[in-house]
């Protein structure tokens, strides 16, 4: 607010001089960050030109021949597996969206019913753990635990007389494995927000409800849920922006050619055609399609979050 104060107390000329002086040091501070962002975030946008070229590594970005929309046309009409990849991406990410929305809420409501504070805290501490570890580590763990020959889960299933399940090798089960393991990794951490919202509910509301004879279920329905509904709306809306992100780290580290038919998603597909097949132009085209759809989704979700939950970035 110092600027405003100066504005009131000083003459016009002097005010201008002074504000430029502080302004200058502010500009100097943001400059290094702006340069790096210009190069490494905006620079790649220049590289979008690749998608409109028949890219030739020997000729580079400035020497390759422009072919207009050909790469995009090829992608949407002929590229083998492209629509399959879109279907996989949408089904895995929508399933994750629903599960990752509902499961943390259910767990939070159940945790809220545990009245022994210390027990609740230790349960929460255990639940946060997987979130801190990388998908590389978790994948290593899952590969061992889910192994059909000597994994502990299949050992248990065998003992119960169930046939071994190929969690990571069977195309029909792989997507479900992705959804469940992702939910397992993130649910604990997602409860933090809801638990924070729950503690801010006025305890007097519960006391009044108890006196009025409201059952535990009724108290939950009429007090607890309305108390966290704004956070629910917000996280639900913001998750829409991730519709095309089915989880690169996870899938990349757990999939294999046997499950490409159901497990290959946009990001893993881009990686393979870019770094394995060296089709830089096609990979960039896929990236642009994804970026444009995501821009639409993210800005819509932010706009909705602003409108319905009064959420602002700054």
């Amino acid at each position, binding site marked *: *607010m*110092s*600027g*405003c*104060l100066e504005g009131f107390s000083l003459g016009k000329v002097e005010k201008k001089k002074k504000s430029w002086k*502080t*302004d200058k*040091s*502010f*500009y100097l*501070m*943001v400059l290094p*960050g*702006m340069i*790096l*962002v210009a*190069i*490494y*975030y905006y*620079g*790649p*946008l*220049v*590289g*979008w030109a690749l998608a409109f070229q028949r890219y030739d590594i020997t000729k580079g970005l400035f020497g390759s021949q422009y072919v207009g929309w050909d790469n995009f046309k090829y992608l949407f009409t002929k590229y083998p597996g492209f629509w399959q990849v879109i279907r996989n991406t949408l089904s895995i990410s929508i399933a994750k969206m629903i599960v990752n929305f509902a499961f943390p809420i259910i*767990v939070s409501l159940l945790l809220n*019913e*545990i009245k022994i504070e210390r027990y609740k805290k230790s*349960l929460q501490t*255990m*639940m*946060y*753990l997987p979130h*801190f*570890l*990388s998908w*590389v*580590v978790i994948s290593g*763990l899952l590969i*061992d635990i889910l192994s059909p020959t*000597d994994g*502990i889960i299949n050992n248990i299933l065998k003992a119960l007389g169930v046939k071994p399940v190929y969690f990571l090798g069977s195309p029909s089960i792989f997507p479900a494995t992705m959804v469940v393991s992702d939910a*397992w990794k993130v649910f604990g951490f997602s409860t*933090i*927000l809801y638990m*924070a919202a729950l503690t801010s509910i006025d305890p007097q509301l519960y006391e009044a409800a108890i006196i009025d004879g409201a*059952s*535990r279920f009724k108290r939950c329905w009429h007090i607890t849920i309305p108390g966290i509904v704004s956070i629910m709306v917000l996280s639900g809306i913001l998750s829409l922006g991730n519709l095309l992100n089915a989880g690169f780290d996870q899938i990349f*580290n757990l999939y294999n050619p046997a499950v490409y038919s159901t497990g290959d998603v946009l*990001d893993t597909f*881009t990686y393979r055609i*870019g770094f394995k097949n060296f089709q*830089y132009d096609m*990979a960039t085209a896929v*990236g642009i399609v*994804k*970026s444009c759809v*995501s821009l639409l989704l993210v800005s819509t979700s932010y706009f909705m979050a602003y409108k319905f939950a009064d959420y602002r*970035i*700054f």
Partner: protein
Amino acid sequence: MIRKTLGEKVFDVFNYIFLTALALSCVLPFIHMLAISFSSSAAATQGRVGLWPVEFTLSSYRFAFQRPDFIRSFGITLERVILGWAVNMFLVIITAYPLSKTKQVFKGRTLIAWFFAFTMFVGGGLIPTYMVVTSTGLKNTIWALIIPGAVPIYHMVILLNFFRQIPKEIEESALMDGARQNRILWQIYVPLSIPALATLTVYTVVGHWNEWFSGMIYMDDSKNYPLQTYLQSIITTPDFSLFDTTQIELLKKISNKTFRAAQIMIVTMPVLLIYPFMQKYFISGMTLGSLKG
């Protein structure tokens, strides 16, 4: 206190059992992995290991720490974490501070803030980013793991919002005393923001520790891999062909399974060890970033 009905008691019992089982599911896999890493290869491959080591041995760990590439990648990760932390924190602080001012104080604020925020909406994509990093000469250097992500925009937003809560009067009185902006930032704002900076430190350090993808695409030689990238490469392609003869003796005592478990545990251990201490910072970061008015 009102007495519980039968239904409520039944619910309570199920609730406790369900949540306890759920919480255990988050911890037991790691304990199982730990047990495997300390077990003999025979016991591990026969699936006899549960939550406690069978035929206790340290050979897998000894083997892991004898592999030069493993040690090297450990060093690269440490270097990355320290350098990355310093660069990230410095840039986040000097960028967030001016942007926390109002339009009246810093005229370019809104435009510049959107210059940064826009990157949260559109990304250049994998290949174009790769080409920029390559053409700026970062490939095969540690800087490829640090510079492209040097300004974490999301952290900047968190810190910017934190700076805003600091009373303006403090800055005003410092200005009256003749302090310049630089000094106000480092001697007033930074010390007052220790909780937020600690939170961001935890996020940054764990982020650099866990990140593996940039190591994979920007390093041509696996000798330059950071730890997680190295781990990723052995998880996807377990390779026993590179061992020299002195290691063959040890190799008899371990298996792919116990060796991998040991390496996974070594990579996990630092996070597990500091986990209890950093937990509150993680939580405050989550609420700092999302629950603002």
